[in-house]
């Protein structure tokens, strides 16, 4: 008898959800296998990259990022267009960092204006992240949701402390929420249940289980994400079957290995390649743990990841 490769059949499937609207809408998720396990089932949609666009000129970013994107830093719409047209971004992730009450504390209306401008510049799906300030995000995302009523977006982070107002806004204006929890399987599932109970269909929830960069606890994030996928696929657990988004660009570029210039650490080698590889390695790790959307920063790491994912999908 000929040898047959053992096949592990999963009972569950990740929800297939549509992000964005109109011609630029993208479908993500839908796999009934662990990432890239093409021989055991199907993975109809490959993981995508959402490139970050900040609402204000970033300060203190490492030189490799300034070299690649410095020219467009001052204008979020130009930045977004550059990402899509020159660097092949599948989605745009608008980071509303300036709304943070501890930073510039810009108004929800300004934030909504920025998002609208970005949306006007590109067709691809838009993901909007607030600053992470619980109360301010609720106000900001409500304004953004209202302004974007004609074009569905995904917005977050929605946490246990502000899921009610943000979910209400998503319900009212037809958007997706990004549910963020601090690297914990149970808490991720609990937040999904709480959000669903407010009446938002599970097809409109993206799961952000949080992540660390390579060298900063990525093993732990990997395990948590993988366990979420195992629960979703192996146990057919309805409340973990949301596609996952991984907000890793900021984590990777915050690590000292990615941002230290070569004159400070001559033995670490070329800063440019080091930074790009640090981000790309973090991203491919998270893709392998089951992320469906990778939020990234540097065009060269994005190109590397696209190439890697295409390769994995073909094999």
């Amino acid at each position: 008898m000929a040898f047959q490769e053992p096949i592990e059949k999963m009972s569950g499937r990740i929800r297939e959800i549509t992000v964005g609207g109109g011609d630029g809408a993208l479908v993500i998720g839908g796999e009934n296998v662990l990432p890239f396990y093409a021989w055991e089932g199907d993975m109809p949609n490959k993981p995508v990259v959402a490139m970050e666009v900040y609402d204000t000129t970033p300060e203190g970013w490492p030189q490799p990022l300034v070299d690649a994107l410095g020219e467009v830093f001052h204008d979020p719409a130009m930045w977004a267009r550059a990402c899509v047209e020159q660097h092949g971004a599948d989605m745009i992730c608008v980071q509303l960092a300036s709304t943070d009450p501890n930073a510039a504390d810009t108004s929800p209306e300004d934030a909504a204006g920025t998002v609208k401008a970005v949306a006007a510049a590109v067709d691809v799906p838009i993901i909007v992240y607030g600053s992470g300030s619980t109360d301010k995000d609720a106000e900001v995302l409500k304004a953004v949701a209202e302004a974007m009523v004609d074009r569905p977006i995904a917005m977050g982070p929605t946490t246990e402390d502000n899921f009610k107002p943000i979910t209400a806004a998503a319900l009212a204006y037809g958007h997706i929420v990004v549910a963020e929890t601090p690297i914990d399987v149970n808490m991720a599932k609990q937040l999904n249940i709480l959000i669903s109970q407010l009446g938002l269909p599970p097809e409109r929830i993206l799961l952000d289980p949080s992540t660390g960069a390579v060298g900063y606890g990525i093993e732990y994030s990997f395990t948590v994400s993988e366990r979420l996928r195992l629960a979703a696929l192996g146990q057919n657990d309805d409340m973990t079957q949301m596609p996952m988004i991984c907000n890793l660009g900021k984590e990777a570029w915050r690590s000292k290995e990615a941002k230290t210039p070569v004159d400070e650490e001559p033995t670490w080698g070329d800063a440019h390649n080091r930074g790009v590889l640090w981000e790309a390695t973090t991203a491919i790790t998270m893709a392998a743990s089951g992320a469906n959307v990778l939020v990234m920063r540097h065009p060269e790491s994005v190109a590397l990841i696209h190439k890697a994912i295409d390769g994995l999908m073909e094999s």
Partner: protein
Amino acid sequence: MPRVTFIPEDVFVDVQTGENLLRTAMMADVGVTATCGGDGTCGKCRMIVEQGDVEAIPSSRLTDDQVAAGYVLGCTTQVVGDIVVRIPAESRPGAAPARAHSQRTLAPLLTIEEQAARVPLDKSIPPVLRRYVELPRPDLCDNADSVSRLRQALRREHRVRDATFTLEAMREIPGVVAEAEWNVTALVVDPIGGAPAITRVEPGDTTDQQYAIAVDVGTTSVEVALVDLNENVIVAQCSEYNRQVKLGSDVITRVIAGSTLAGLVELQHLVADTITDLVLQVCAEADVSVPDLNAYFVAGNTVMTHLLYGISPASIRFEPYVPVASEFPLTTARKLGLPGGPATQVISMPCPASWLGGDIVAGVLAAGIPWADRLTLFVDIGTNGEIVLANTDWLIACSCSAGPAFEGAGIQHGMRAAEGAIEQVRIESTTLEPAILTIGNVKPLGICGSGLIDCVAELFLAGALERNGHLAPHTASSERVRSGERGMEYVLVHAEDSGTGSDIVLTETDIESLMRAKAAIHAGISVLAECVDIDITQVEEVIVAGGFGHYLDLERVMALGMLPELPLDRFTFIGNSSLLGATHAAKSSEMLKTAHKIAEMMTYVELSVSAGFMDHYMSSLFLPHTDLARFPRAQQLIDQRVVIEEAS
């Protein structure tokens, strides 16, 4: 047992003769308004007895016409036989739900007879007992010394072999034999391993007065029972908060406080004082002379036992978390500052591990686990939740910190399960109007553990709580929900109905405390089951212990996700099993031996180094659980209510 059927619901329950009718209605889950705690003053719990007889105290709240029509107040009426009772519309907080003819089964506290039946009948004598002997007088032919004479007589008449004498007892002999002409009573202490000791000699026959004190030293509460060793019964019992609470409410802060000599001395005095007051109280109640007490039998967790003996528990806090001792020497009450005569002994239950003490050994004994040939889950719900999974061949146990919520401490309006404590709560889904019943049917003073469980479970089932334990936004429109000093709160009793003159409320912080406590217990159970690779549904009996009131509504306990969902008939609510086990040991040396055997057999699982515990804890920190599929009945209960709401 009388059967009480409620119409129009057509639900029946079987209750003890003499059961309160309002309580019966609550047990049957029939909606009735009751705001006074059951003392008959609010007059709202009117019911019509349509068939059968009851014993009702006449009430000025009822008109003559109503009485003639069969009206009674549920709270002042006792069930004496099979009856059919109609709940009139005016006594209902909401619409009557349509329910099929059904029985509701309950898990009331085991009766004294049922508790006794859990352990085999045992003819052995108490480990500390007065024995009367008539000694032959010495003469020139029979010139053996007095001690040998007494030893011989004890062997001949009571089969006490190789008795040793304490110096104090020897000193008593000359006076006693002279006074009582060689008719004497000896106090025989028969400890585990070693020869019996004679610790006291008294003139004449004093064996008609033989009493021992059983003590449960809990972190939060201390309870004592006065045991009549001649009659084999508990004659008086009472409890109080452990006065050590003023130095910290949880075990760890006590350990820290007990790490200095001054702190250790203070803690020892505080617990001894607590016990002293309780002992004086029970002895006064039963008219027993304190100096004549035979012995104390103490069951306490390891830290509490160390503190009572004045031994520093400091090492328990540091890796590798070992206590000083697991067995404690025989000593006298006076040495520990407890009331009694010079020879009153103190015997403690062995403490197998740092976080697994004599209270659990006593509990396992009282639950009858060593004799029950089935897979048993024993859960003692206190400040520390101890869990034992066992059959006759093996015992595996763990301990998790639940906090004092179940004992009513650390809760804004919490109290012990004493008179005036709200122990049963039903909440109507649409109006959130509660019906409450207190221990002793008096005006409510606070909420005890079982009332807290009932209240939170009811709020959850009524849809007033979100799964994370927060009050749902829609409840803000209810007049029962308001914003208080510590966040949102639910008003359980208005000031005019309470015995304290102010509102009794349940805050979101209280709910959080209960959530954490129940999550710890459920996580502990999950870890143990995983350790021995047993599916929790294989458990044949679940024994729940703890100092709750008379009732623990297990359906509610399960709806909270504290205990695994299993058929209700597998549950037994045994009450304070630690005290019960100590009582058994006081009555029988065989039982004391079995307790030591239990301690030796127990395998302890240290949760602080268990990789799975935190994960299970987080998934249990949700109502009823993150994995909703494990609690299908809780979901059914919620759905039932929703149907009722839609229908009304």
